[in-house]
């Protein structure tokens, strides 16, 4: 049978399974090799996306040039929700299989997710002022984004206030999963409560209602944010591995 192989830090070939990278050592090595690629790809797509978005994309006939913040706002909002789901997924995986690295990944994603949530809120306020005439309105999507920020803060707060990292991982994982179950409920309750936000510009299975250059710029920015998110989360995860496994023999050998 043709099994996929993985070559470890010291050149040995090991069989690749789902749990290969659950070993902190393999993970540390793999993350170290992936980070430069994602970082470079993120910078490239980011520059291309900003260039097309700022210079090539046409001016909107209703909103003027103010709309151009969409190239940061929409990708940030997507990432904020996606990262919460990824975080809950990793946390749940760590809870079920007791794989420490999955939990490390979850706690490494949380600050990035919170950052994107904050960015989406901030750019939304900057966009709202010229188009709606107010920095903040109590609209369903804005409010649920704000609640998402609180969910991130709760997760990080709980994780930070339990001293034993393993226990912190597991307790925070329960909270992340409860939050993930609640997100749709929160979204719909707030949606019925009030809505003013413009409909989504890009929906799967429907022709997008925007110029091709705008769409290209936005997709490039989405790619850039993905790459940034992956690179920075892996970097943070590597730091956490260093913190937790600093006394392990393989790390000490590497650090010499």
């Amino acid at each position, binding site marked *: 049978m043709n099994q996929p192989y993985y070559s470890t830090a010291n050149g040995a070939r090991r069989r690749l399974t789902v749990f290969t990278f659950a070993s902190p050592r393999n993970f540390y090595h793999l993350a170290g090799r992936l980070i430069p690629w994602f970082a470079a790809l993120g910078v490239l797509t980011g520059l291309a996306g900003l260039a097309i978005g700022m210079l090539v994309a046409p001016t909107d006939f209703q909103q003027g040039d103010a709309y151009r913040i969409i190239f940061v706002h929409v990708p940030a909002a997507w990432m904020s929700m996606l990262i919460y789901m990824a975080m809950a997924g990793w946390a749940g995986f760590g809870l079920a299989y007791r794989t420490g690295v999955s939990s490390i990944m979850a706690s490494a994603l949380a600050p990035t997710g919170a950052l994107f949530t904050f960015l989406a809120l901030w750019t939304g306020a900057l966009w709202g002022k010229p188009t709606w005439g107010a920095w903040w309105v109590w609209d369903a999507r804005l409010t649920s984004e704000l609640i998402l920020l609180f*969910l991130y803060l*709760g997760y990080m707060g709980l994780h930070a*206030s*339990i001293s034993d990292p393993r226990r912190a991982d597991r307790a925070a994982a*329960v909270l992340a999963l409860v939050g993930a179950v609640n997100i749709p*409920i929160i979204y719909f*309750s*707030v949606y019925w409560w009030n809505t003013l936000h413009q409909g989504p510009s890009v929906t799967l299975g429907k022709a997008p209602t925007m110029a091709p250059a705008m769409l290209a710029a936005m997709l490039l920015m989405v790619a850039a944010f993905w790459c940034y998110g992956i690179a920075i989360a892996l970097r943070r995860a590597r730091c956490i591995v260093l913190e937790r496994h600093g006394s392990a023999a393989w790390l000490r050998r590497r650090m010499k």
Partner: protein
Amino acid sequence: MLRAARQLMQRDLLLALRRRSDALMPLAFFLVTATLFPLAIGPDTRLLRSVAPGIVWVAALLSSLLGLQRLFADDHADGSLEQLLLSPQPLEVLVLAKVFAHWLTSGLPLLVLAPLVALQYGLEPEAMGVLWLGLLLGTPVLSLLGSIGAGLALGARGGSVLVALMLMPLYIPLLVLGSSAVVAASDGTGSAPHLMLLGALLAGSLAAAPWATAAALRIAHE
């Protein structure tokens, strides 16, 4: 199994009866908070009537957060929680018994007090009835979701602020549906859908919360 649950509930109720001030404090807090708002925003009856549902719900939510910490903390401190974890009975059922006892000592008195507060704000009898029904369906959800937070906060340094930070986002659907039910009743659009959704929240959290709480308690005792 049911006998164990009943005995645990009786024990918790007896404890609450012996330490009455613990259970009464959040109620006093509820009354005081609800009284502060008219003093802050002025005695205009129309304005008060329109903000009353929101204020009653926020006050109920805050007062439930206040008493939550003690749901498991005392048992954790004196070791009886460990006995519950070691017992052959399913932990989820025991958690449910404790949560029910907590609701009897925190949610039920709130239901008695809520009409008084509603009178303070000059709510119509019909709106008051809907508010009361909403609280009847909603306060058990407060206790159920709260038990997850109280379980997770065991052994954490944050204390009650941490519990509040964790639970506030989860309480939001309750707050929205509870107060909009009263608004819908007073403007004549019908409060039945809101109350039904509150009932759905109750059914959902009744089914799911004990498991999450039990998992949290097991993690706290690893």
